[in-house]
């Protein structure tokens, strides 16, 4: 079910019988109709192994299952919300940025090292993603939180995008990312520009960037 953006800090979702969605615990603002909120021990979909995987990967954000029939309003912590519609591709996002997502999406955990080996792990450290990140795959909508407004930058094969690692929110599509460093002697003596690390994304897809360098 798609999310309807009520305003920049609030989305409305419609749940129907047989449909399920996941949301961050405590992110419900209001609801109409008969909707139940059940804490989800597993922190998302999949069986016990997925749950253990998420725990180990530290991507186990407290989630709850939303079921029933009615409309639910979501919002959290005064953060801006960006709704991302996925059409069969994969979204890479940190688990604690997830506000709510369709139950039809497949949730997984990805090891940063699997994209670029050691450099991928270094990249995870710099962007604050850690060694693991969450993936959502399939057809459906995701509501992602960000500090400040969000802009979407398209990535095309001819035009790679460079992003400040702290302003990076999420990306989807067939995208390769690599950490580009512009370290020079100035950084060594503490006179750097403060922009020594950049995330370079290339391929086909889109990256979401927040208008702030503050973390959630």
């Amino acid at each position: 079910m798609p999310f309807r953006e009520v305003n920049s800090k609030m989305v409305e979702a419609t749940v129907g019988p047989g449909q399920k969605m996941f949301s961050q615990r405590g992110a419900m603002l209001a609801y109409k109709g008969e909707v139940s909120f059940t804490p989800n021990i597993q922190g998302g979909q999949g069986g016990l192994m997925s749950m253990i995987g998420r725990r180990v990967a530290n991507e186990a954000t407290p989630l709850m299952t939303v079921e029933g029939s009615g409309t639910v309003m979501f919002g959290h912590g005064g953060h801006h919300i960006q709704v991302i519609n996925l059409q069969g591709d994969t979204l890479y996002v940190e688990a604690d940025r997830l506000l709510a997502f369709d139950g039809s999406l497949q949730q997984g955990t990805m090891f940063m090292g699997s994209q670029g080996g050691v450099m991928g792990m270094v990249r995870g450290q710099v962007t604050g993603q850690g060694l693991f990140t969450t993936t959502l795959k399939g057809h459906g909508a995701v509501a992602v939180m960000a500090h400040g407004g969000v802009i979407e930058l398209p990535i095309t094969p001819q035009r790679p995008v460079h992003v400040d690692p702290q302003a990076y929110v999420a990306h989807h599509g067939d995208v390769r990312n690599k950490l580009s460093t512009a370290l020079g002697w100035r950084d060594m003596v503490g006179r750097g520009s403060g922009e020594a690390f950049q995330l370079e994304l290339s391929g086909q897809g889109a990256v979401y960037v927040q208008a702030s360098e503050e973390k959630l």
Partner: protein
Amino acid sequence: MTAPVIFDPYSLPTDDNVNKYTFCVELKSSQWFLQKGKMIAYYGQIEFNGVGHGRLDRLLRTSFHSPLHAGDWVVADGSGKMLLADRAFDVNSYDLDDGNLTIRSGNLLAYQPSLALKQSIVPGFLTLIGTGKFVAASNGPVVFMEPPIRVDPQALVGWADCPSPCHHYDHGYMTGVLGGIRSLTGLGGTSGEEHQFEFVGAGTVLLQSTEVLMAEQATGQVANEPGVPGGGQGGPGQAGAAPRLPGQLGDLQRRFGL
């Protein structure tokens, strides 16, 4: 982006928003009530008097009915334009036409004296009655909803007309075998959504877009007399009402004697 707009006393809007976070009030030898410290600038001749000033006695009799938190309010009196803002929260004005509206005490910034301010029976809320304009702050834009609706307590700003507010508890997942284990061990935690305010009846419910509360403004202690909710300190049910920590089992612990 557009260049910054420069306002002068003539180009400032009259009783309208300057931007999302600032509201401009025009005074023509009239008066406005405002919460202390919410005025950020003014043009013209405006005097700010603490409530309880002798000259304002008559005004107070008609439009100020919470004697116990009079200290938090001032009366702006004179002619000019006055800008109101509150910690970069969204500010909006609302018109009441012979109506009533109940609002969380911390959210109300200012109101016209043609409205009467009264303490609500619901602790922590204030009710405005009559015809006039008032200005309220909220975290994120305010959303208006029709009852029946259930609202997270932290997202509630207020309600207009008379829907009936009550508590709603949703512990459905605490039943059954799994739920039993959950409530006994605390494993799996709570959804954080087991308690809502439920509104039924005719009226409008005001929501803010996030769960970040404005600082609570003391509405003053109500008289300690029988039949007054929240009157006096510590009724029988109020004992040990410690602030609830996240992840705690709501009030279930108490109910199960844990």
